[in-house]
């Protein structure tokens, strides 16, 4: 909490109310107008720290005004300072809950400032907060970051060890979408080549080569390797080149004795592999996660982690994350379907149909099943959909690896 800015906002609001009350000289005979502010504001913490001996913090605990005092016998001062505030919330001054505090607010404020000044020089520190609901200085660090570094810093600054709480937390990042530049590169984000946009299906290692897999039609020529160069998320961005197409088997013509229909060209997967350029960071097994399935959000809020591979059967609920329609989820309706591709002579053999949302740009997306927590089972590569955008088609992972060779995907 930033105390100074809060106090300024409260004063400004109070001033607006006062002006509104005084500036209109007319009288109304109608009902009383609804007050703009119905709740009396708490005094700013600076005032509380000066007027309430041993004040250590104010917060609302399940609706009840609650205050830390280092000397709980001083509750009378707290009731006087906060009585109006408590009454505006339906509590008598005597109902204010007083907790035994260990540290005075002034000390916590000083320690918090001191820690803030130096802590961010250490790796992994996410935030520093004077936690008024805990009567402590709270330091958030990224998972795996050193707690000991923060504690030794606090000791060097003369902050009592018990006054500092170190808690692991997720890093705070700018709201990044599936269409933005994302590093390390994860599945589900936008890739750009030529005049086209697709999505990354999954990261993989093949014969020691760091790679990502996307759709075969997300290459300069569908079927056959022509060294398509990929950018994430757009070639116009700096440092956006991420890799080059290295595997994309040709489509074979149908004929007698072939699974491929006559006068058609076939494969069992619409999948290709690109080798990452040197130095491009990526997360093996990582799939971008948005806030929920079928809600249209493209904002990345976390990540899924591939922990297995498998195949789906009719009735399974499966998912995909792609740059256009985000995270969608639905039921498998058909498996091993020989599927003609509109506007071409291509037939994709033994594909899977899913009743779930899809849109242009989702080609190449990961398809997966949820297995608990953020763990997922990788199922395949999305490449097609119906005109209404309500059904997607994907190539099963077994077909993908049959054609691209063995892949390490997690």
């Amino acid at each position, binding site marked *: 909490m930033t105390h100074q800015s809060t106090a300024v906002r409260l004063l400004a609001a109070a001033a607006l109310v006062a002006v509104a009350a005084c500036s209109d000289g007319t009288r109304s005979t109608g009902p009383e107008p609804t007050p703009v502010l119905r709740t009396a504001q708490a005094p700013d913490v600076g005032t509380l720290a000066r007027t309430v001996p041993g004040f250590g913090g104010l917060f609302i605990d399940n609706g009840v005004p609650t205050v830390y005092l280092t000397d709980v016998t001083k509750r009378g001062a707290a009731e006087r300072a906060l009585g109006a505030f408590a009454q505006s919330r339906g509590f008598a001054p005597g109902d204010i809950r007083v907790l035994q505090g260990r540290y005075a607010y002034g000390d916590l404020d000083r320690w918090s400032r001191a820690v803030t000044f130096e802590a961010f020089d250490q790796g992994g520190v996410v935030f520093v907060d004077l936690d008024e609901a805990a009567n402590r200085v709270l330091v958030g660090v990224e998972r795996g970051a050193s707690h000991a570094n923060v504690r030794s810093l606090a000791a060097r600054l003369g902050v009592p060890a018990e006054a500092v709480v170190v808690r692991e937390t997720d890093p705070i990042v700018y709201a990044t979408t599936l269409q933005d530049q994302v590093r390390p590169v994860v599945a589900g984000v936008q890739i750009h080549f030529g005049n086209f946009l697709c999505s990354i299906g999954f990261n993989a290692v093949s014969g020691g080569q760091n790679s990502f897999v996307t759709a075969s039609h997300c290459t300069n020529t569908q079927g056959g390797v022509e060294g398509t160069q990929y950018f994430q998320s757009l070639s116009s961005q700096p440092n956006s080149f991420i890799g080059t197409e290295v595997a994309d088997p040709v489509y074979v013509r149908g004929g007698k004795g072939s699974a491929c229909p006559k006068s058609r060209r076939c494969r069992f997967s*619409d999948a290709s592999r690109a080798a990452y350029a040197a130095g491009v960071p990526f997360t093996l097994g990582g799939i971008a996660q948005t806030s929920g399935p079928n809600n249209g959000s493209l904002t990345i809020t976390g990540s899924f982690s591939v922990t297995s591979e498998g195949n789906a059967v009719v009735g399974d609920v499966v998912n995909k994350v792609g740059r256009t329609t985000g995270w969608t989820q639905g039921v498998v309706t058909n498996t091993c379907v020989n599927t003609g591709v509109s506007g071409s002579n291509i037939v994709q053999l033994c594909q899977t149909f899913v009743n779930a949302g899809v849109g242009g740009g989702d080609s190449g997306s990961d398809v997966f099943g949820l297995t608990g927590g953020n763990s997922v089972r990788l199922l395949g590569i999305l490449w097609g959909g119906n005109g209404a955008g309500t059904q997607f088609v994907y190539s099963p992972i077994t077909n993908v690896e049959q054609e691209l060779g063995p892949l390490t995907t997690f």
Partner: protein
Amino acid sequence: MALCTWGGVALCGVALCGAALLVPRTVTAAPQPPDTLRVTVTVSDSVRRGETVLVTLRLTNTSDKRVTLYLTGRTITFDVVVAGSDGQVVWRRLDHVTTQQIVHVKALAPGETLELRDRWRAAAPPGTYTVTGVIPTDREPLRTAPAHLRVAP
């Protein structure tokens, strides 16, 4: 089959069958977002039952600035919806087909037109039909206002 022209000059694709095509009529769509585009569909006024109708969608940049479009499909995907006077759809071009879900980034210079064509065999009973064009994008699709087509016995 889709044919495409740029600025009404270059034509790529297949020759049309010798259907009895009458003078085309253009219906201009209501303003579309973004309002720098005009989307129209053109069909014959009338056709005999069983004959082939040429349907032409035109997407024109009416602004004085280059416009970048995020269309779909390696070959640009578009839909044509033919409906009877009761609203019943008798033909939808993208019905029961699987299209590749790729974004096709296309720039249109000021005044430039993208033209998309297909044919529909008017096997429906005689009557009056509406023909609407739909061009999917990576967001909301671009839609034309309906054109009217009479199928004669």
